[in-house]
């Protein structure tokens, strides 16, 4: 660490990583304990907002490079302190989401649309991780298991999705997750702008 820009990068990664970690180990654990439906999607939305606001706080793309992935790594380091038992799965999702956001925003100038796309990709990560895990564990029976788990453990039955087939259920969860990611990505862009104005900083 040598320049003020690098010090700022480290500070943003540490503070925003701590914010996301704090949200995961308090709000995330409570949502999980209370059995709230689509809690993974909700927490992904929180993570997307934190990562992208942190990234935009750093200003120029060259200064912000690598920050989203690093924020995810800091959050993953905090997750073992969680009340929740499934922190290994949460760590995988957090790092995956951070990788997606970093990959989408690695090159080019930041913009609202790009932030929304990054959010969309990050939103799909928990669904993909879940499907890959179940296929690895259960093989051909994975879709059936996914349906059972989504309806019981994920609160799908409480949302009135019990009549859907496994494929339909997967499609609904995928679309909802992507939509939440997309909205959160764009909301992060707007939120960062509001914060910049509130703090009286010049636009980058």
């Amino acid at each position: 660490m040598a320049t003020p820009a690098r010090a700022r990068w480290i500070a943003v990664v540490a503070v925003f990583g701590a914010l996301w970690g704090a949200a995961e180990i308090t709000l995330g654990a409570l949502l999980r304990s209370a059995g709230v439906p689509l809690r993974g999607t909700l927490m992904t939305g929180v993570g997307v907002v934190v990562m992208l606001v942190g990234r935009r706080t750093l200003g120029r793309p060259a200064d912000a490079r690598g920050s989203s992935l690093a924020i995810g790594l800091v959050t993953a380091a905090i997750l073992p302190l969680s009340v929740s038992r499934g922190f290994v799965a949460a760590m995988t999702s957090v790092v995956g989401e951070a990788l997606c956001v970093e990959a989408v925003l690695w090159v080019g100038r930041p913009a609202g649309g790009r932030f929304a796309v990054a959010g969309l990709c990050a939103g799909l990560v928990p669904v993909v991780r879940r499907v890959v895990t179940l296929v690895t564990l259960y093989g051909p029976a994975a879709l059936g298991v996914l349906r059972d788990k989504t309806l019981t453990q994920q609160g799908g039955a409480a949302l009135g999705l019990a009549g859907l087939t496994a494929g339909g259920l997967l499609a609904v969860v995928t679309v909802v997750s992507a939509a939440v990611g997309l909205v959160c990505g764009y909301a992060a862009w707007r939120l960062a702008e509001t914060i910049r104005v509130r703090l009286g900083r010049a636009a980058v």
Partner: protein
Amino acid sequence: METRRDNPGPTRARGGIALALGGGITALAAAMLLDWPAIIGPVVASLLLLGLLNRRQLAVFASPWLWLGLAVVLVVPVWLFGASRAGAAENAAYGPAALRVGVTMALRVVTTLAAMLLITGCVAPARVATLIGRLAGREVGLACGIGINLLPAMLETVRRTTLALRLRGGWRRKRLANLRRLVTAIGVQTVRMTEDVAEALLLAQAGVRHEEDDGDSREDSGERKPT
């Protein structure tokens, strides 16, 4: 800086660090493995240890909102709707048995929170930085160390902001607009905190350089370093 004022800081003594880390990790493991009534042991032990090593952090457990929150989110729903709703057992438990499951879950949260405060209070950023730095790079390692230390300050910031919003008539009307205000306020506080941390990092670096320069000039002039 708010971080310095709110975070009681690491437990300094070497024996204290070993005790806090050992106690914290043991309490975390016990919270995951034990059930009612054995869970009461780790709860009492972790709170006693926290009081012994860092009494100021016990204030978290003095808040009635924590206990009310645990009761509303964990104990009452499990008691009313049965234990299987929380995934606690295949065959659902109802009535007093479900209440026991709910109370056990709440005590597990309390133990984990105490363990978290014990561990974050004694984690030295430099050590975490060295460990993670080997895997993911020095700067990410340093950020991890700082991030873990910032957790109590971050939770306090969120709590204060929520309280300020509630005192201004918060959640009674215009909930969506107030939620947006809350998120913005937390965002502003977080960005301010990053500026404080960045400043502290630069100052720490300048301090290290100054000490090194001081040592070099003493060696050049033939002066012995103080031991």
